[in-house]
């Protein structure tokens, strides 16, 4: 995208390598991700456009399902040529698509701020396993850094085997060890290295969860639409 901004012609097809199927007659170019270039580009974008537009590009680029790349490129070219006002044109197909993608990613990040469950391990570390659709770990980590600055915790993306650790001072990339990975595959309280207090506390939570529902108003459909099943794997109250 930095190249686009500098004036490279927009590509005909762009996709993540894992999803790319080569075209017989096309010219190919592989783009390596580079955090320096990316950070510079975001800064440029913030200066040229606006903070919310920078965030929009950032969220959209963290989409985990693919298919958004083309419109993201188009959107960036539009921003460059037509100015930041174009972001207000909800009726433009590329703008609408980028906004939708960004909203999906931001939406999942927001949802996970609520649905993340920290488990206290026998070492005292608060460990939260999650399997999000999109690359939302950094956004969620920022939220908990503000909220629980005095604790030590780790967010573990089990699907992508990535983790971010907060050591009380900094956010650091971390590598979950293999035994924990294996325990995640089984995923029950007996297999996980939980502290005794953790087992007690999760029981209390399950009790609360059960009794807080009003018996005459059972509504599983509404429950699922707010809290889709794919998030239940790591929800203490749903185990």
């Amino acid at each position, binding site marked *: 995208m930095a190249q686009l901004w500098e004036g490279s012609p927009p590509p005909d097809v762009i996709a993540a390598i894992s999803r790319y199927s080569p075209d017989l007659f096309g010219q190919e170019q592989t783009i390596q991700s580079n955090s320096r270039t990316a950070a510079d580009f975001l800064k440029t974008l913030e200066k040229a456009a606006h903070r919310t537009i920078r965030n929009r590009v950032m969220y959209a680029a963290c989409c985990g399902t693919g298919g958004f790349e083309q419109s993201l490129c188009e959107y960036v070219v539009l921003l460059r040529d037509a100015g930041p006002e174009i972001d207000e044109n*909800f009726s433009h197909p590329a703008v609408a698509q980028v906004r939708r993608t960004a909203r999906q990613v931001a939406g999942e990040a927001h949802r996970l701020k609520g*649905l993340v469950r*920290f488990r206290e391990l026998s070492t005292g570390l608060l460990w*939260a396993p999650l399997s999000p659709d999109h690359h939302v770990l950094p956004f969620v980590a920022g939220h*908990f850094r*503000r909220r629980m600055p005095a604790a030590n915790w780790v967010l573990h993306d089990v699907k992508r085997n990535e983790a971010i650790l907060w050591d009380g001072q900094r956010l650091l990339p971390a590598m979950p060890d293999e035994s924990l990975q294996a325990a995640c595959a089984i995923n029950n309280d007996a297999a996980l290295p939980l502290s005794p207090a953790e087992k007690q506390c999760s029981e209390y939570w399950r009790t609360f969860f059960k009794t807080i*529902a009003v018996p005459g108003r*059972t*509504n599983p459909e509404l429950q699922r639409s707010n809290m889709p099943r794919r998030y239940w794997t790591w929800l203490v109250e749903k185990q």
Partner: protein
Amino acid sequence: MLLDEKIAILSGAARYDVSCSSSGSSRGAGCAGMGATSRAGICHSWADDGRCISLLKILLSNYCIYDCAYCINRRGNDVPRASFTTDEIVNLTIDFYRRNYIEGLFLSSAVQVSPDNTTERMINVARRLRNDEQFGGYIHLKIIPGTSPELIQRAGFYADRLSVNIELPSEKSLKTLAPDKNKQAILQPMRRIGREISENRALRRKQKRLPRFAPAGQSTQLIIGASPENDLHILRLASGLYERYALKRVYYSAYMPAVHDRLLPELSAPPLLREHRLYQADWLLRYYGFQADEILSEDMPDLAEAIDPKQAWAYRHPGFFPVDVNRADRETLLRVPGLGLTSVARIIASRRFGPLDLKQLDRIGVVLKRARPFIICRDYQPPKEPAVPVFAGQHKTPQAAPPQQLDFFDEPDMAIQRRS
């Protein structure tokens, strides 16, 4: 008694309180403390009844000296009773919070010795959380009718939100069903909270460091269907509360026959649809610029079950439509069924780039299925004679009835209050 049993009893007793919002406040965690609040609020789970769980909603105790007919905790009801100690609630809140189960605490209680005695014990929990545990999460405290002003003032400096439940929509019903409560005992604390909030806001403009009083405001709750009041009465009451007491929210709770009493109606099921329509109408009052007397009238004092109140209004006012989405102002657009706050804002932003057509409206997020009969856009005009569904009793011209006051607000003391 085991803590697990207490949790079951006292969350079971608290579940009929509807409010679960954790929004409207922003508080940061200090370096030693834990917890912050988020302005938009965060839901942490959804219970089996589909309602969001954001706060640890719990009663301090369900031993009650009152005997309100509709309440599961009434004195005469044979249910298991329990009380938490301060330590138990404080620890449970912290333990749940650090695991990210909850956004904070919603603490209410049955009336044990007296309103003041009970409130004092609730304040004690909040004080412990804020001062000893440096807890920065959300706290919602329920204020019991009849609580003294001094205690209300203390409560507001620990809590993000305070609420006093009106419970029943009129004084008469209150007298019949909740003989220990009375209108004055409910309105006085509400008034007090309202005044404290606005005074605190004014003072804080001069002194930024002053502690905030109930930054997320106050709310209340009404039971729907336990007493005979119609929807018009309820909406007038709600809009009075929004306008006069600056309430953040009025919650409606479909009456659940949790106890049997000859004074209460025998319902086969709770009036959930009515509750839903009331919430829709409430949204129209707060965000869409509608007045209670536009939504309903003396001739038609109840909300239709078959369609939402905004559609009902549209069908009763064919002369208002069709609305040209490329020209109409915000207030007009907000009256169109199928257009919400978001899509109206987007329409206004997008049409600067050129007139919008149906496809673009669809992309913007307009619910075309509902909006189509009421709009004009670049490539669309509704048929001349739109097929207007006829709903019984809705096409009478409303008679110019003299504006009626609610009986909740009717007393002379309220008139004095309004002048001051």
